[in-house]
């Protein structure tokens, strides 16, 4: 992507690298796309092409988002790889994984390759996820070997869960053979037809059909059971949102099943009772859940059950959102608010240590996908770095988002914690003004 020798010295920052158990003032030298040296402040000798003074800031491995919708190919009126990754960079993400539910569905090695072409204009690392079944129809598996070779990091039919037991078993079996993660959007869609929010007092009051929490837990339970049949199967539960599903994951992890899960910032920040006035910026799938589900997520984020925070960044055009709630598209944007929400809601309100939050953005997601040399800043790792101010108070303004879309419930929210610089392969992808 970028040519020639280049070095960048990040000094006087506070390094948090949970994978290396580092939580101390450290200087960092990046050279030619790799971490060249990590040392106590002032101990790195010699000159660098560029220097960054990170005094008062946290220096962390580059954040990885396991779940974003960049809408290409086919839906560039919502978002493009260029605008979506720019929003990612502004939010502190150095790597994003894009979902295959595009038009057409990314279910061939050709499309996986297409996504990674320089012409797409990605400003951060882009890791494609491919469809688990042809056209995500849940009937015929895609060619996992070829997709993996083309650069796909996992397969998923996100948004269209794999319901058939046989096909899911086959996906996990083949995934185990190839060491390829299968990501499931856990929702029994047979039980959630015509539903646009979570079932509970709020859906009853608003007069809208509600999705039962059990529609998520039952699929997680089924998938865990199937994954246990194959040594080496890797099951990842996308945007887990209910207390019941968490129980299943917790039990599976205790039994040494290789199951991982992610939680979104909106699910740990909001609950269904926040849906006021039929505001469609509060409509997403899985939906905002009950207050007790949210509390269970907070516990699981703190105690290690959750592996990663993932945004499920889902941009839409305004004409798809400014309609009747029941007719509106599911999904909200999330790349630029994730860090601020994590620090505000998890660190400041819940007292979850910063090291754990950094873990959820870095080594956690890197392990889910086995991304070698990412999610840490040990010597020789990729030079992906997120530098953030954990104390900065700021107001998120949707109108100034780098994303093409404005569909967020967090417009005008006061947040604490903001990315100051995002470094991808040793170069700045974003620098705060």
């Amino acid at each position, binding site marked *: 992507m970028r040519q020639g020798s280049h070095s960048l010295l990040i000094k006087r920052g506070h390094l948090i690298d949970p994978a290396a158990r580092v939580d101390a003032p450290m200087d960092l030298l990046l050279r030619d796309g790799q971490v060249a040296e990590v040392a106590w402040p002032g101990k790195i000798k010699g000159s660098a092409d560029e220097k960054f003074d990170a005094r008062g800031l946290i220096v962390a491995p580059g954040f990885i988002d396991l779940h974003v919708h960049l809408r290409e190919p086919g839906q560039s009126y919502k978002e493009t790889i260029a605008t979506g990754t720019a929003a990612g960079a502004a939010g502190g993400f150095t790597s994003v994984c894009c979902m295959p539910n595009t038009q057409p569905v990314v279910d061939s090695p050709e499309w996986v390759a297409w996504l990674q072409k320089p012409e797409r204009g990605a400003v951060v690392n882009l890791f494609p996820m491919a469809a688990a079944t042809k056209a995500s129809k849940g009937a015929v598996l895609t060619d996992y070997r070829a997709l993996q070779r083309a650069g796909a990091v996992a397969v998923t039919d996100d948004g269209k869960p794999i319901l058939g037991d046989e096909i899911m078993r086959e996906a996990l079996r083949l995934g185990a053979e190839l060491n390829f993660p299968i990501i499931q959007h856990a929702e029994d869609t047979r039980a959630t037809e015509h539903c646009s929010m979570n079932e509970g*007092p709020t859906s009853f*009051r608003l007069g809208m059909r509600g999705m039962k929490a059990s529609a998520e837990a039952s699929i997680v339970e089924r998938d865990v059971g199937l994954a246990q049949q194959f040594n080496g199967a890797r099951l990842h539960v996308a945007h887990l949102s209910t207390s019941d599903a968490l129980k299943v994951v917790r039990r599976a992890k205790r039994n040494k099943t290789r199951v991982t899960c992610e939680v979104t910032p909106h699910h740990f920040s909001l609950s269904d009772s926040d849906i006021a006035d039929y505001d469609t910026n509060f409509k997403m799938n899985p939906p905002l859940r009950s207050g007790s589900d949210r509390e269970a997520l907070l516990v699981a984020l703190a105690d290690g059950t959750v592996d990663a925070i993932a945004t499920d960044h889902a941009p839409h055009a305004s004409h798809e959102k400014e309609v009747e709630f029941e007719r509106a598209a599911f999904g909200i944007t999330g790349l630029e608010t994730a860090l601020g929400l994590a620090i505000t809601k998890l660190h400041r309100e819940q007292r979850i240590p910063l090291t754990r939050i950094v873990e959820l953005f870095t080594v956690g997601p890197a392990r889910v996908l086995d991304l070698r040399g990412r999610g840490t800043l040990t010597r020789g790792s990729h030079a992906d770095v997120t530098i953030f101010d954990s104390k900065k108070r700021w107001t998120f303004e949707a109108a100034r988002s780098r994303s093409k879309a404005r569909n967020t419930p967090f417009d005008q929210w006061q947040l604490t914690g903001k990315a100051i610089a995002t470094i991808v392969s040793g170069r700045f992808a974003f620098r705060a003004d």
Partner: protein
Amino acid sequence: MRNAARGSLLDIGHLKPEEIVGLLNSARRMNPQKPRPLLKGARVLLLFYEPSTRTRSSFEIAAKSLGAMTTLVQAGGSSIEKGESLLDTSYTLRALGADMVVVRHPNAGAPALMSRHLDIPVINAGDGMHEHPSQALLDAYTILRHKKTLKNLQVGIIGDIYHSRVARSAIHLLSKFGAKITLCGPPEFLPEVATTLAPNLHITRTVEDAIRSADVIMLLRVQKERLAGMKISLVDYISRYQITSSRLKLAKKDAILMHPGPIIRGLELAGEVADSPQSVILEEVRNGVPVRMAILARAFTRRRA
């Protein structure tokens, strides 16, 4: 995005008790036989995305009794059929010079959406399973013609509460004034979560318990198609929940029987019950006009305050 224009009526849930009292008092001063030109020259748009007989004609008669011009726009035979969005239709009606819009829509929250984008009052004539505020107001008006107060009144609401916007609005209104409400129906029509809607709600699965010592019995329409997918059969439903003359005797002697219509004789109620002296079903229809006159008058006079 903006707040709803003053004079809008989107739901009962957010209405203050004094606003409800104000509307009911105003309705008592309205007389469809003696037109008052309170809305002279006003254009009232009736936007109906769902079929409706009584609500639509009731609003229309109310508007005309106040001297307004009305225009009916229905989903069939308009640009709505061609895929125009609710907001674009709303802007179009505004551009045509509408002073207020009365809207009936199959989706919950559709009037709220319109009200956030329009500078004229929006009146909810029923939105999905959410609310039907003018029905609740006319029901309160009707009850108060027979009972002194809503406070401590025993009200049994029976039937398909889950799918009913009439039930939600009635529950909000009656609860605000301290009525004691018993809800009755099979679980598919009445999930336990219903009790969270308002204070003082109780659930029973036995229709006799809902009727016994009641001052007011409020029946809801039961759609046969909905029973199709349920555990309970049509025959069982009728035997367990239908209001018959003998069941009606369990209520207080001066109890009134209400139904928002359309009624299905032989399903939720026996034919003779509909025609019994205790039935106020047609009176409800009649009272709809002055109540809707009050709603429209409030909308028009408050719109630019």
